[in-house]
């Protein structure tokens, strides 16, 4: 469905993303996981063709979506895809909705634009979708304004907008970060159901490894703008190959069963301005060798997945 190869993105002289590759098919959930500054949101924006909006451009690589290379797509064709066959759910539901417009018209607009429906048809569709998302009294909700809704409700409405044009691919950028834990569980379950019922492809971007474990089939781990490991979710958690992935899993607070104390990774996540030379993780890595300081590792297949490391494998 979507195959990204060697994606590189630049803003002026700065290269925040490089060598990012992953693929996703219908009915699959792909998790892109990383900490702040890892480039995961930037990846989502690149797929959506929104880079020019923020002053960026694609420098290398390709993004094959159903036969078309998105990197070569003209803006007017992109507009047909965006909100249509590719839907985006953004991080902050508080700011994704127009505060001055009622909810009904905002969701209707998607069907009108992308499916050519009339106002009445679009409204019927809106009510139906809101119902499937378990929003109570959808017909009444259409007449309300965003500020009258809670955070969880708003996020469901944003999801409704993403679904209204019957997309094949959904990109959810940290859809639950701003929500309470119990609401997050509901939204995650909702997304799970959607993927199953509609055979969607879902790219879930998050910093939370537990969410990934719960809901993803495949995982891409990003660090400093590079995909440093990827693979099926079971392999990533059972046998992580990259020292960063291993350390990241080790940072998750666990119950008493472990007995070990979590350590954290020494140092700090590098900012775009000072990505280290060679492997971006080497200053914080406990098995770094001189090669790691100069030669940047490339994402190479290993087992069921791929890893970008000179010395991959289980921790010594």
């Amino acid at each position, binding site marked *: 469905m979507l195959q990204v190869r060697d994606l590189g993105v630049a803003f002026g002289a700065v290269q925040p993303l490089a060598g990012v590759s992953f693929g996703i098919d219908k009915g699959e959930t792909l998790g892109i996981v990383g900490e702040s500054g890892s480039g995961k949101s930037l990846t989502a924006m690149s797929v959506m063709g929104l880079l020019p909006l923020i002053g960026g451009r694609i420098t290398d690589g390709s993004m094959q979506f159903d036969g078309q290379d998105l990197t070569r797509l003209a803006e007017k064709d992109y507009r047909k895809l965006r909100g249509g066959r590719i839907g985006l759910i953004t991080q902050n539901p508080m700011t994704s909705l127009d505060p001055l417009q009622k909810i009904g018209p905002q969701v209707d607009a998607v069907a009108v634009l992308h499916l050519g429906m009339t106002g009445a048809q679009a409204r019927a569709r809106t009510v139906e979708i809101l119902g499937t998302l378990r929003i109570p009294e959808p017909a009444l909700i259409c007449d309300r304004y965003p500020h009258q809704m809670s955070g969880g409700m708003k996020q469901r409405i944003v999801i409704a907008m993403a679904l209204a044009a019957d997309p094949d691919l959904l990109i959810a950028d940290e859809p639950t970060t701003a929500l*309470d834990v119990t609401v997050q569980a509901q939204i995650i379950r909702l997304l799970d159901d959607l993927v199953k019922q509609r055979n969607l492809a879902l790219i879930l971007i998050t910093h939370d490894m537990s969410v990934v474990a*719960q809901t993803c089939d495949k995982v891409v781990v990003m660090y400093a703008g590079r995909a440093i490991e990827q693979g099926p979710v079971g392999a990533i958690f059972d046998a992580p190959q990259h020292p960063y992935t291993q350390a990241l899993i080790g940072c998750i607070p666990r119950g*008493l069963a472990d007995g070990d104390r979590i350590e954290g990774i020494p140092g700090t996540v590098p900012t775009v301005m000072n990505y280290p030379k060679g492997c971006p993780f080497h200053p914080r890595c406990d098995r770094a060798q001189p090669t790691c300081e100069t030669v940047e590792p490339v994402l190479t297949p290993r087992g069921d997945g791929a890893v970008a490391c000179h010395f991959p494998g289980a921790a010594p």
Partner: protein
Amino acid sequence: MTNLLEVRDLSKRFSSGGGPFRRARSMQAVNGVSFDLPRGRVIGVVGESGCGKSTLARLILRLIEPSSGTVQFNGADLLAKTASQMRALRADMQMVFQDPYSAIDPRYTVARAVAEPFGIQGRTPKGSMADEVAGLLDMVGLDPGLAGSFPHQISGGQKQRVGIARALALRPALLVLDEPTASLDVSVQAQIISLLQQLRDDLDLTYLFISHDLSLVKYFCDEILVMYLGRVVEALPDTSAPARHPYTRTLMDSTFEPDPKLRRTITPLEGEVPSPFNLPPGCAFADRCPQATTLCRTQTPTLDPRGGHPVACHHPI
């Protein structure tokens, strides 16, 4: 083991004033909270937004005046203290704040921020101030060379360490931690948590740990208080205790395991947290609870200290 903290029936009501055109509204942010915090223990307070946990932290430190209830700190009744007595007592009970980005005066260097408690409380360190500051920075894992830096020059994790150093400068007995890692990356969070554990051992501290992250609280704390809309609905005596309150069970079910083999089935929980201004009568959780009865909707359950595992529910699990 003596209790460092004894809280009884602590409550706080906030009202937004009325006027000729607007009716006054009030909400009970914290409602009848009671618990003991023994010396050397770590108690976690967990709940979602609006549950009152942050307000509770501030009530205990008397940064907000309680509407009713008592707080005994080291045997002394905090609410009976005068303003200047409170100021002196504060040296013994400190707080680490949620937002490291605004917790330090942007115009103060790290050294000045960490040294400030001494000046305020009128104490002098044993050696020189510079040595004391260096020692404190070292204690929280910071390079003493950062003493001359400004907050905007250091990272979030480093800022939080400065906040911890400042809080511990006068060796308090109690440290209240209000979501200390909520705005930090996972890898940095782990560093800070590890630091806090080590400091607790080294300095014999007692912690009150506020968080929305149940897995973090389970990892870090000895006992757990679960709050919902201003009330403590359950007090877990240890972290492996099973949930007895339906809300706690929901919270646990919503907290995912970092292991794909342990995926949860998420049962749909309808509704959202009701507005604290318009609380329905009876149990606040009733309209979302899968096992609510008419009793639940009419009578508010109280915390029943049954066999060391108190729960506020008419039909505990």
